[in-house]
């Protein structure tokens, strides 16, 4: 039996959806101009940029969403399954700062940091996918890191991050574009990686986060990205982020309802543009901290919101995503461990298909690669938990006792040797279980640093065909030029 956890009763989910459908009619949803014509031809009333989307249309669009899909690695193998109760993890994304392990201060993140995160993530089986984890501020300000295109303006920052990740990883990528103009370059990059736009559509390597703005607003660029992704057949992941009490109702149930309305609206815009194109019921909901005005990612209520939002998506039979395994602490300390491990467990028990956020500290403002390897252990524990307790063999205990009698010599049994790896997750040395020896014990941060260094030293860059790399560079050069001209 797979252990699960459920916060919402089926009746409450139905009620949430009922009210979400009501919200889509009244007050309606603010939408970008790019989608208005398409909505109107589907019979939707749009006045002053506000669309009133009827339930019947949303239901029709929901029906064309694929119930599941796969992301593929560079070798063309299925690597991430979005659907059912499958649980995958990827690092948090788009941080601007990096925790310096020497000074323990947050400093501006750079290309070398993104590369290091990718290298570590590549080695850890706990992460089924990479993410475009940190902003490369060095490339933005124009240091010589993009080769001949050393003046990469911030406008192509999203593209540049994906460019870096694709060069250093074979895994699928969770990414996103923060401008309407930037998306096409990223799709072109992925198509070059896959071989062709058609191949990318058949075997997508990446999923794109697309965010509405709470409350009930699909901005110009959000609307645009939904349509472009739907037409390209590249998976989209809606990341609605109501902040309970700030940009959404203070009640958790109310925020889940708003999340549902924003996500249903997004799915409608998306499916109208490309019926059957893959899309994920995702989110990064959080509570609004009434002291700081921030979004506490480590709060248990934030985890509860992510769980409940995913439950609504699962109820509709859709692939799901959430934002967990992050902390509000500024260090990789006990708070970071407690908050991240707790939400990893809760997310896994909920059966969220993709859980983003590992490695993040300071409420998503800063990334720590040391935390990433510690989180990998929390994730492994969560993955072990959801495998549950399995029955192996004809009897539970009597057959083995028939062999050992009362000698207690279980360690010698061939079953012990055959089964312990399945029964136990064997942690890496980041987790200390050793008896006290003559060496002074070290703390987890120090052990994590050692682990990061080990993983980086063993890392081998994937061999990218020369022509693919040239295509990558051509796309980046073209987009950099376009951005320069636009500016």
């Amino acid at each position, binding site marked *: 039996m797979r252990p699960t956890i459920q916060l919402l009763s089926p009746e409450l989910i139905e009620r949430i959806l009922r009210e979400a459908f009501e919200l889509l009619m009244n007050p309606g949803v603010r939408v970008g101009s790019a989608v208005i014509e398409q909505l109107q031809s589907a019979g939707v009333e749009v006045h002053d940029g506000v669309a009133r989307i009827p339930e019947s249309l949303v239901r029709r669009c929901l029906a064309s969403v694929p119930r599941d899909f796969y992301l593929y690695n560079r070798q063309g193998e299925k690597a991430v399954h979005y659907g059912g109760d499958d649980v995958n993890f990827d690092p948090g994304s*788009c*941080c*601007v*700062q990096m925790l310096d392990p020497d000074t323990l201060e*947050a*400093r*501006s993140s750079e290309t070398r940091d993104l590369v290091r995160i990718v290298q570590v993530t590549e080695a850890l089986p706990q992460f089924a996918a990479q993410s475009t984890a940190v*902003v490369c501020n060095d490339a*933005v300000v124009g240091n010589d890191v993009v080769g001949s295109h050393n003046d990469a303006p*911030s406008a192509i*920052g999203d593209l540049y991050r994906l460019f870096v990740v694709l060069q250093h990883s074979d895994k699928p990528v969770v990414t996103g574009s*923060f*401008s309407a103009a930037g998306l096409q370059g990223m799709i072109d990059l992925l198509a070059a990686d896959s071989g062709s736009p058609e191949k990318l559509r058949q075997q997508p390597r990446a999923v794109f986060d697309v965010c509405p*703005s709470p409350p009930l*607003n699909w*901005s110009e660029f959000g609307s645009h990205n939904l349509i472009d992704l739907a037409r390209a057949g590249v998976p989209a992941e809606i990341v609605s982020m109501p*902040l309970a*009490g*700030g*940009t959404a109702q203070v009640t958790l149930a109310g925020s889940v309802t708003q999340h549902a309305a924003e996500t249903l609206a997004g799915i409608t815009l998306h499916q109208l543009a490309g019926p059957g194109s893959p899309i994920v019921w995702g989110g990064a909901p959080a509570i*609004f901290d*009434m*002291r*700081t*005005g*921030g*979004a506490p990612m480590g709060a248990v209520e934030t985890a509860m919101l992510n769980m409940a939002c995913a439950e609504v998506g699962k109820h509709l039979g859709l692939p799901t995503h959430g934002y967990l395994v992050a902390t509000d602490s500024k260090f990789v300390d006990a708070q970071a461990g407690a908050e991240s491990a707790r939400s990893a467990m809760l997310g896994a028990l909920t059966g969220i298909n993709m859980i983003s956020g590992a490695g993040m500290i300071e*409420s*998503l*403002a800063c990334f720590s690669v040391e935390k990433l390897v510690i989180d990998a252990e929390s994730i492994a524990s969560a993955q072990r938990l959801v495998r549950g307790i399995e029955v192996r063999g004809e009897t539970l205990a009597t057959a083995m006792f028939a062999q050992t009698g009362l000698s207690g010599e279980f360690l010698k049994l061939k079953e012990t040797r055959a089964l312990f790896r399945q029964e136990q997750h064997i942690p890496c040395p980041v987790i200390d279980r050793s008896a006290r020896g003559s060496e002074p014990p070290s703390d987890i941060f120090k052990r994590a640093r050692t682990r990061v260094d080990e993983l980086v030293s063993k890392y081998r860059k994937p061999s990218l065909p020369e022509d693919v790399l040239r295509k990558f560079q051509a796309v980046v050069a073209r987009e950099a030029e376009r951005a320069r001209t636009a500016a």
Partner: protein
Amino acid sequence: MSDQLFGAMLQSIIDGAPDKAAELARQALADGVDPLEAVNRGFAVGITFAGDQFGCGQMFLPDLLASAEAMKAAINVLEPEMLKRGSQREALGKVVLGTARGDIHDIGKNLVATILSASGFQIFDLGTSVTPEQFVAKAKEVDADIVGVSALLTTTMAGQKAVIEALDRNGLRPRVKAIVGGAAVTSKWAAEIGADGYSRNAIDALELAKSLMSKGTAQA
């Protein structure tokens, strides 16, 4: 009699009760109380107290917002009379606010606007996704003392830098002070882009604005 009234005014702000605050303001006018005195000895004491309580963790953002709303209600009643008497409450300073280009998240910016306004600053709120040129134009038009740029997204923080550069280009600084805030903004970032100040929350922003004003006066 007046002390009692001032006490009730103070309490209406702490309670975040706009109807009560407006009623007390009307009563003060009916009783012939100097409206400026009503503000300074009554309502404003309440908003300062609320700020202090927030600072030490006893009050929370919804409480603080309610206090600011009550303050606004009282001022709305008193303002016409103050104008008539020429005893208008002197603005602590003129502040142009907006979110950075590309950023439509305005919750933090709105909090700052509310708190600063309740505390006596004159606010010119440009709304969301404001270009550097718009900031500059408004700052010139109203002869601003402070320009505040908010950015929630890590991707729009660069817009804060652009505003500061535009203020510099137009020769508005150092007379006009530039301040920044937002979830991902840090004092380090503020220093990096040459901002005159940064604050973590709306109450700190009030302190920051006051201290910049006193520095500005000292320099002048």
